[in-house]
């Protein structure tokens, strides 16, 4: 993708945060460094910064979510923004209203930022094309396309443990086909120069020509885990069984579930990650999820600082754009 992507202004600064694809090393390290400096806020007695004071952030979730929505809400509140949560997934009243109508209605409430999750790929980009210029759109997950804030918190977590990306071997395991987390993480790791990115899955859960994303493909877990520094497990949705993609959860766990025994094939200091919510006994054994190598809860904590960073960077650029003080 070229530099003229809608999420960037003419100087290449982030106006929205829609996808990792097409961003530069500089964009990513700016976010990571900003997040690092914001991480300390949570340890203060007063966990607030005035950065977004007087701004209104709308969480627009067309798909159910607890963790992502909550961490976005906390991030906005720690930056002193007002937060409005709209869970449209559960509101049948909205049925029949088009996304554009919803957008214009919320716009009319004079908001400054939309955090949006939607089941259709490209939904966040669609939103960004239609919002008024002072509004920033953050993609909190669109279909199977992208989940860029998750990818940023993942690489943030990796960097805190293993800062030398070129030397890293990272394995992403499970339902790559339907995973926006995997797609965004692959882009982020490539941009940061990760040494070797692997995907491990049965053929039914891999998208066509996935190797073109710059990954090495493995179908067998033990082979793929050998000597990796980071293991990222993906959540397996129950409905995959009905779509004839897998025979059973049991067989999936036997072939692709992460157990202590299999983790032993990775480097001794390998870390284990998962975007959550985890299915214990389906993709990951409890002893691994709760074990010493797991950084799963740390990911959740880091998610707040990373989202604070992305919110302040994008709204900061909007402030410059509209002539306000940043």
């Amino acid at each position, binding site marked *: *993708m070229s530099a003229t992507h809608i999420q960037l202004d003419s100087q290449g600064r982030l106006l929205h945060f829609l996808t990792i*694809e097409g961003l530069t090393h500089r964009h990513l390290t700016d976010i990571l460094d900003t997040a690092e400096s914001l991480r300390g806020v949570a340890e203060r007695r007063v966990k607030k910064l005035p950065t977004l004071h007087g701004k209104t952030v709308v969480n627009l979730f067309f798909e159910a979510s607890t963790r992502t929505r909550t961490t976005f809400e906390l991030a906005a509140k720690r930056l002193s923004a007002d937060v409005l949560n709209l869970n449209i997934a559960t509101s049948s009243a909205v049925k029949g209203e*088009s*996304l*554009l109508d919803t957008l214009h209605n919320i716009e009319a409430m004079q908001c400054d930022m939309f955090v949006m999750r*939607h089941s*259709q*790929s*490209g*939904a966040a*980009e*669609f939103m960004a094309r239609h919002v008024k210029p002072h509004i920033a759109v953050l993609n909190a997950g*669109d*279909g*199977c*396309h*992208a989940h860029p804030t998750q990818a940023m918190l993942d690489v943030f977590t990796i960097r805190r443990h293993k800062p030398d990306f070129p030397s890293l071997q990272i394995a992403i395991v499970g339902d790559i086909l339907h995973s*926006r987390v995997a*797609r965004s993480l692959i882009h982020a790791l490539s941009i940061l120069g990760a040494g070797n990115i692997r995907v491990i899955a049965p053929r039914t859960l891999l*998208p*066509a*020509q*996935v190797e*073109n*994303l710059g990954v090495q493909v493995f179908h067998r877990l033990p082979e793929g885990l050998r000597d990796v520094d980071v293991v990222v497990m993906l959540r397996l949705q129950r409905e995959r069984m009905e779509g004839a993609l897998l025979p059973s959860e049991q067989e999936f766990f036997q072939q692709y579930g992460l157990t202590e025994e299999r983790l032993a094939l990775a480097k001794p200091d390998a870390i284990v990650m998962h975007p959550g919510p985890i299915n214990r006994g389906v993709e990951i054994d409890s002893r691994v999820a709760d074990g010493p190598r797991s950084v799963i809860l740390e990911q959740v904590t880091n998610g707040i600082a990373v989202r604070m960073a992305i919110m302040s960077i994008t709204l900061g650029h909007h402030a410059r754009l509209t002539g306000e003080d940043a």
Partner: protein
Amino acid sequence: MRMVIQGGRVIDPAHQTDSIADLFIADGQIAGLGRPPGGFIPEQVINAHKHIVCPGLIDLCARLREPGQEHKATIASETRAAAAGGITTLVCPPDTDPVIDEPAVVEWIRRRAKFAGQARVLTLGALTHRLRGGHLTEMAALQEAGCAGVSDGGHPIASSRVLRRALEYAATFGLTVFLTPLDPELGNGLAHEGQVATRMGLSGIPVAAETGMIARDLELIRDLGVRVHFGRLSSSRAVDLIARAQAEGLPVTADVAVHHLHLTEMDLTRFDSRCHVRPPLRGLRDQAVLRAGLASGVLTALCSDHQPHEPDAKQAPFGDTEPGISGLDTLLGLSLRLVRDGVLPLPALIERLTWGPARILGLDRGHLGVGARADICVFNPETDWRVEPSVLNSQGQNTPFLGWELQGRVTYTLLEGHIVHEGEG
């Protein structure tokens, strides 16, 4: 009314005519080419110097949205767009609402088209009741009512048993069967299964969704002797399958939509819903083979696959939008671009837009022989124009070709000798 179209380059592929000549028209029919018939005194003279004079275009697949979806377009609005585009015959698939599965609907559409008077509208009857793939329609009655053939109407029949029976029954009455090969389950996706769909997280439609259906259908028709036309091929392997079947002597033909010859999966990269079509835009190699298939004559017709939409139908995230491109306005211009791209010479192109589809339909149209109905298109091949909303005649403005610079503008369209469109060359 007697008329002469003077000094144009007359291209009539059916008679291998390509020469500068005068074309004479009397009583709605072609009266002569080159020399006037005895005692001919024209009442009207059309100057066609530097213009191409060819049979009116025949578009094998155009949704007019009436009856049932008049908020998208109407027979009146779309036949007007057809006339402005040099198209004199439109073939309307049966997926209207109500479905064209009984004579009353055929009659109703014919009357509406006649009232509009801008283009001839032919209908394809449904193969099965409500296009549901279960019960056969009364095909003989549909034929008597005037249907040009029978079709799955974009809803391929999943059951091989039902399709086999439908083919046999259609063959009984000598009806040509128009099929759109896309496996309903395997084809239930948004984009060509490949690297673009993978990057964008759009569900993929594998090539096998198309070729699997074609392979099955070809085996089913092998001993039936039924004429089958496959509409809107999208992949190189589909072209190969049709070519092989034709070489074996099976009575099969196929067409391609003109947008598949100009766009590929790469055009989806910005989630551009105007490029959301079924079958999906595929890879560059597929496009090259489709172009070659049109040139070699494996594909004997080029159509618009016209699907006009209201703006709301395309104003949503990609997967929530309706598929289809509004194509009547750009059919000729995009087709002529193939000549400029060196895909095939102009007379061959004209053939794929006139005599080719006429033969598929089994009609004595699409040519300029003496006595033929005077359906004529006169266009200036040199006129540059830019595709912009203001120049589109269709009620549907959903075209990804906005902003394209095309060449070739229709100056006159004649329907049975009557001028139905007069434009600036």
